[in-house]
C-alpha cells in the first residue's frame, strides 16, 4: 500500500508485509506473526497459530481416563504438573473422589515448584528477548535445581506424568522436604540477583515501561488471566477465588500492580517467585503423613455427566471441561488454556509499536505455543 504525504505528493512510503515466524529466534517455538510494517512501525499484526497442533483433545477421547494423563503433559511442557493437575481434578470431580490429604499437599508442592521452574524459564527468555543474554543462563541454572527435585520424585525432568486419579503416582522421597528447604534457602536470595540484573537498568526500564499497556477492561474482555491480569490491576487468582486442594490453609499474597505494562508483568512474576517460596515453606511444615494415593481401577468408568474445573497455572487460568457418557473413555475433553487468550489480545497491543517492542510484549505475556495449539 502506498501512502502519500499531503505536503508533498511526490513523496510516498510503502507498507510491506513481514512474516515473523514460524522459524524465528524469538517467537517462542512456532508462533507466526504476519506484520504489516510502515518502516519500523507495526501497522497491523495478525498472529497465526496451529503450527504445533497435535490434537490433544481428540487423542484424549480414544484413551482411558488414566491414559490421558501423559497426554496432558504435552499440553504445556513448561509446566506439566499443573496440566496434569487440572485434568486429574476434572476426573476426580466427576467420579467424586477426594485424594488423601498428603496427596493434596504433594500436589500443591509440585504446582508451586513448577511455577518457580516456569517463571525462571520465563525470566530467562524474557531477558533474552530484550537483548540481555546473561539472565537467560541465570534463570536456567536455578531451574535445573528445581528439575533435580522433580527428577528425584518422579524420574522425569520435563514431562512428569506424576499425578494420578486419586493421588500421585509415588510418594515423595524421604529427604525431599530437607532438600527442598535447602534449595529454597539457597535460591531465595538469588531472586535479588535476578532483579539486580534488570530492574534498575535504564535500558531495560526504557524498553519495558509504558510499553504494551493492557487496560483492565480489555484484559477482562479478552479473557486474560494469571500474572498478566494481575499486572493490569485486577487481583484475580484461582487459588484465592475458587480455592482447590489445600490452598485455603496456606498463607500467601497475590501481588498486584496497576501499570499494566511490560515492566509490571515482569515485576508480578518476580513477586510470585517469592510467594511460591513462601507457600512451599508452609507445605514442608504442614505435610501430613499417610497414604499418597487412593488406588483406582486401571479402566475406571465414570458416571454420566459433565464438569468444568480450573486452576491457576503459572501462565494463568487453565481449565478442563470433561464430559462422560458412562464409558471408560472421556466423551469430550476440552482444555481452556491461558496462552490462547494472551495471543488474542497481544495483536492489539503491538499496533504502532516498533519491532523491538513486539519481542518485549510477546515475551512479557509468557505465551507458550504447545498450550495454544494443543
Amino acid at each position: 500500500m502506498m501512502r502519500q504525504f499531503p505536503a508533498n505528493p511526490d513523496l510516498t512510503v510503502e507498507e510491506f508485509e513481514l512474516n515473523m515466524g514460524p522459524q524465528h529466534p524469538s517467537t517462542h517455538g512456532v508462533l507466526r506473526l504476519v506484520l504489516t510494517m510502515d518502516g519500523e512501525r507495526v501497522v497491523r499484526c495478525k498472529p497465526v497459530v496451529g503450527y504445533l497442533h497435535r490434537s490433544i483433545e481428540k487423542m484424549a477421547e480414544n484413551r482411558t481416563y488414566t491414559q490421558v494423563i501423559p497426554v496432558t503433559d504435552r499440553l504445556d511442557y513448561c509446566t506439566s504438573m499443573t496440566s496434569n493437575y487440572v485434568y486429574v481434578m476434572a476426573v476426580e470431580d466427576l467420579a467424586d473422589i477426594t485424594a488423601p490429604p498428603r496427596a493434596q499437599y504433594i500436589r500443591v508442592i509440585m504446582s508451586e515448584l513448577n511455577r518457580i521452574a516456569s517463571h525462571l524459564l520465563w525470566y530467562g527468555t524474557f531477558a533474552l528477548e530484550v537483548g540481555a543474554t546473561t539472565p537467560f543462563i541465570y534463570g536456567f541454572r536455578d531451574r535445573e535445581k528445581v528439575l533435580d527435585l522433580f527428577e528425584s520424585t518422579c524420574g522425569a525432568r520435563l514431562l512428569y506424568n506424576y499425578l494420578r486419579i486419586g493421588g500421585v503416582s509415588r510418594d515423595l522421597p524421604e529427604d525431599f522436604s530437607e532438600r527442598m528447604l535447602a534449595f529454597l534457602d539457597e535460591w531465595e536470595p538469588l531472586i535479588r540477583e535476578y532483579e539486580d540484573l534488570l530492574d534498575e537498568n535504564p535500558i531495560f526500564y526504557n524498553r519495558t515501561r509504558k510499553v504494551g499497556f493492557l487496560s483492565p477492561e480489555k484484559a477482562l474482555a479478552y479473557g486474560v488471566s494469571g500474572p498478566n491480569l494481575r499486572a493490569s490491576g485486577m487481583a484475580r487468582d484461582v487459588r484465592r477465588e475458587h480455592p482447590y486442594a489445600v490452598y485455603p490453609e496456606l498463607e500467601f499474597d497475590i501481588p498486584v500492580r496497576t501499570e499494566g505494562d511490560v515492566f509490571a508483568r515482569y515485576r508480578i512474576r518476580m513477586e510470585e517467585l517469592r510467594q511460591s517460596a513462601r507457600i512451599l515453606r508452609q507445605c514442608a511444615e504442614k505435610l501430613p503423613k499417610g497414604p499418597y494415593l487412593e488406588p483406582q481401577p486401571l479402566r475406571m468408568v465414570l458416571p454420566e455427566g459433565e464438569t468444568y474445573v480450573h486452576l491457576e497455572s503459572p501462565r494463568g487460568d487453565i481449565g478442563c471441561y470433561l464430559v462422560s457418557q458412562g464409558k471408560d473413555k472421556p466423551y469430550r475433553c476440552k482444555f481452556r488454556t491461558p496462552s490462547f487468550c494472551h495471543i488474542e489480545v497481544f495483536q492489539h497491543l503491538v499496533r504502532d509499536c516498533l519491532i523491538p517492542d513486539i519481542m518485549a510484549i510477546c515475551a512479557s505475556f509468557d505465551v507458550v505455543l504447545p498450550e495454544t495449539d494443543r
Partner: protein
Amino acid sequence: MEPIFEQFIRDLTGGFQVPFWAPMLVSLGLVLAFIALNAMFMIWLERKICGRIQRRMGPMLTGPKAWARFSMWTGGWFQTPCDSVKLLLKEDIIPAQVDRFGFMLAPVLVFMAALAVYVPLPISSTSHAQPGPIVVAVADLDIGLLYVVAITTLTILAILTAGWASNNKYSLLGGMRAGVQILSYEIPMLFALMGPMVLAGSLSLGDLVLVQHAGLFGVPLLGWFLVPSFLGAVVYLICAVAETNRPPFDMPEAEQELVAGFSTEYTAMRFAMFYLAEFSNTFVVCMIFTAVFLGGWTLPGFTPPSSVNLGFFSLPYFDLLAGMAIFFAKAYAVVLLLMWIRWTFPRLRPDHLMTFGWKFLLPLSFVNLLICIVLAAIQQIYFGGNPG
C-alpha cells in the same frame, strides 16, 4: 614504519638500502596477520569472558585435552581456528533475487575500511631511528584522528549496502538501523574527540600520546586525557560500542528481532568478513581509546631505556617493545570493559539510541569541549606550549 624498518634492516645487514615498497608490504603483511590472529584470539576470549560472567566455562573441547584439564582458561584454544575452517568450507549461497553487485561489494567494503583504519594507529615509539625519535605506526598521519573517524564510517555504508542489496526484509530493516546508529553516535563522537584535539593542538595520534606523556599543568599523572576530558572519554566509549555494532547497540543485527539483520542472507566467507571486520573494529576502537585517552604506549613519569644490557646479552629496541607491551595491555583492558558491557546490558531500542545520542551524549560532549578549552588555555598561558 618506514624509518624504523629501514633502520632495522640497515642494522641487521650492515647498510643495505631497502626498496621503497618493502616497508609498505611488510607493514601490510603484519597488519593482516595481526587482524586475523587477534580476531581469533578475541573471539575465543569473548567466549571465555561470556562464560565466566554466565557461570559457564565456554569452549573446552577443541584443542589438547590435557590443557583443558588444567583450568577453564586453558581449554578450547582451537575453537576459533576450527570455526574459521568451517566457514571456509561452507557453501557460498547468493540468493536468486539479490542485487549481485551490491551483495558482493558489501563484504569487500567492510573489510577495506577495517584494514585501512590501521594506518595511523601508533603502537609505540623508539629513539633508535634516524634522525631522531619517532612514533611507530604504519604511517603516523598528521590528520590521524580525523582519518580514523572518517574511514570507520565506511563500515556503516557497507552494512547499509548489504541490507539493501540482500532483498530481504530483515536485512532491509537491519540496514536501515545502521543508519540510526551512525546518525546517533557520529556527532557526539566527533565532539567528544574534539576535547583531546584542543588539549593537544594536533590531530596526529602520535602527537596526542606525546602531549599526554608530557602531562597537564606540569603533573604527569594528569596527563592522560581521561582526566581532563573525562566526560569525553565516557561519551567516546559509548559511541565506540555503538560504532562497532556490539551489544547493547547491535541493532543492525539484533538477533532476537531481525534474525541476523543485515547479514541474514550472507553465508560462508562473505559472512566471515563481516564478523572479522566487527572484531577488528572493536579492537581498533580500543586502540583509539588507548591512544587518545589512556596515554598510548606511555606510563606517567616513565621513559623506558632505548636498550637494555643484561651483561651477556644486549637487547636493542627495548623502548619499542616496552611501549608495545604497555599499549596492548591498555587496549586489552578496554576490550575487557567492552566485553563486560556486552554481556550485562539489554539491547537499546533504535529510537531510544537516537534520543540518547542527541539529548544526552551531545550536550555532554559540548560540556566536555568547554572544560577542555578552559584547561587547554590555562595550560598554554601558565605552563607553556606543547612539547611536540
